């Protein structure tokens, strides 16, 4: 990996890891205060049956990012950030999958295929932090590509 990519990785994933960790801890706080009903704050949503598991995963991913920032150029350290990113992608991916699976048929009492456009849009108005974080975690591609070029 180039020095530039290693430096970028250290700084970026240091800051990003802290943000992921904060969102994970916030998940526990919201869980303690509001239970599985959670809260919706602007476009952000923290609620649902597996809410506490999502919080555990975000805290772990945040900690893994932070533990990888020292000597980020080392492949073992980079692998920790890649594993943390995969964890966030799993959480985000399952939320997106739940939206798709719920919108294909219109529920037990609904129609056969696809609810109305309004209902469909309604499903996606509030988004959990993991989806935003998954987009930001895509920056991991840069150090991976840089490593591949220099290998």
């Amino acid at each position, binding site marked *: 990996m180039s020095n530039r990519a290693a430096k970028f990785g250290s700084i970026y994933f240091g800051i990003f890891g802290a943000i992921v960790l904060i969102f994970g801890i916030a998940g526990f706080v919201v869980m303690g205060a509001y239970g599985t009903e959670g809260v919706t704050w602007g476009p952000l949503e923290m609620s649902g049956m*597996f809410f506490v598991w999502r919080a555990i995963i975000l805290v*772990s991913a945040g900690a893994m990012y932070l533990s990888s920032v020292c000597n980020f150029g080392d492949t*073992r350290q980079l692998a920790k950030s890649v594993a943390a990113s995969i964890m966030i992608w799993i959480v985000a991916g399952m939320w997106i999958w739940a939206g798709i699976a719920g919108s294909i048929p219109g529920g037990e009492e609904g129609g056969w295929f696809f609810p109305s456009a309004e209902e469909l849009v309604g499903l996606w108005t509030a988004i959990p932090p993991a989806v935003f974080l998954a987009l930001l975690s895509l920056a991991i591609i840069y150090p991976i590509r840089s490593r591949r070029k220099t290998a």
Partner: protein
Amino acid sequence: MELTVDQRWDLVERISKETVEVGKYEPSLKDALADVTVRPATGIPFAIAVIYGFWAFFCEFAGTLFTDGFFCKIFDGYWLPWLQGVFAGAPAWVFNIFVGDPLADNCFEAFGVLSSGIFVAIGVVLPAIVAFYLIFAILEDVGYMPRLAVLVDTLLHKIGLHGYAIVPTILSLGCNVPGVTATRSLETRKQRFLAITLLGVFVPCGAQIGIMEGMIPGLIGWVFLALAIGYFGIGWIINKIVPGESPEILMDVPPYQMPTARNIWMKLWTRTSKFLTVAVPFVLLGCVIVAVLYITGAMDAIASGLSPVITGVFGLPQDTAAAMIAGFLRKDLAVGTIGMLAAGGMTITVFQVFTAVVLLSIYFPCLATFALMIKELNWKEILGTLATLIVMVFVYGAILHLIGLSGIGSSPWVPLE
């Protein structure tokens, strides 16, 4: 000179120390990632994320998309009315066995072989099993399952199994039948007996999980916790009591790789076809027996005979007795029946529902699993398994009853719509 398994491993270690030289090397990203996923500090959080993904996919694919989205509509809107029309002129006992309750407006509550039996097998369990084995096959093909086995190896050694026993255990969460078959990969008879007993008693199948997920989503985590305590606690005791060896094994941990569609399809088909050919006939047979017991009045007689145990030892309402007995034949329908009884006015607390679901999970493997256990174990081992589950039912039932008496979860349970 004959060496024991441990002595053999010591010898292997000594020889390898003297002959193998490990140089310095720069691992590839794949190697490093493989290492991260087996080290406990990073591997356990990663495993939690994978299991979360597994579970979330399972619930949405099986419950939301197929069962609620398509199969409920097909079976309740078309299949049941068609059956009711076709059997309209049949004698009452034929109607009751094949179609079930004439007033039922959905297949789940009808309790007939061709209504509830087919609906549960095809509409509820099949999507659950397909979802389960699809993800399982992908994880196996990617190379994650052997790493999960390495990760849990130390833990499973405490109960006399090794890490690879996680494969039959997880398979059993789909259907116990392929799970029991997969124990053939374990080395000794002791390990096979241990694994079959533990998964037959403490691992609920996809059918049950699917119905629990719809009926008691808030309690499902507690049910799994209670079963996990039993799995490890009783596993530890059986390991101490039962003679025999629990040797170490050398596991091949392949590198991570892209899964291939052909492999996944082959695995999915092999396992799902096992469910369709072995388990489904037993599901239907269970329906016939339950229907006959109800029609002849035998169910009420058995229920009133066993109600002192149900109410006195387990602390459950008397009305649940018939459902608990039906659970010997059809655990999934028994869980659903408790929901229907509550919806019909039976007063039952949240903790009693939890107790009933835990007891239904542990007190008898389904008929298909039991038939396979007879094939896989000798009669002494079968008796051992039965003794374990009988003791467990009473121990668990009494402990949960005592915990319930403290007032925990005493609010009335309201079934979900």
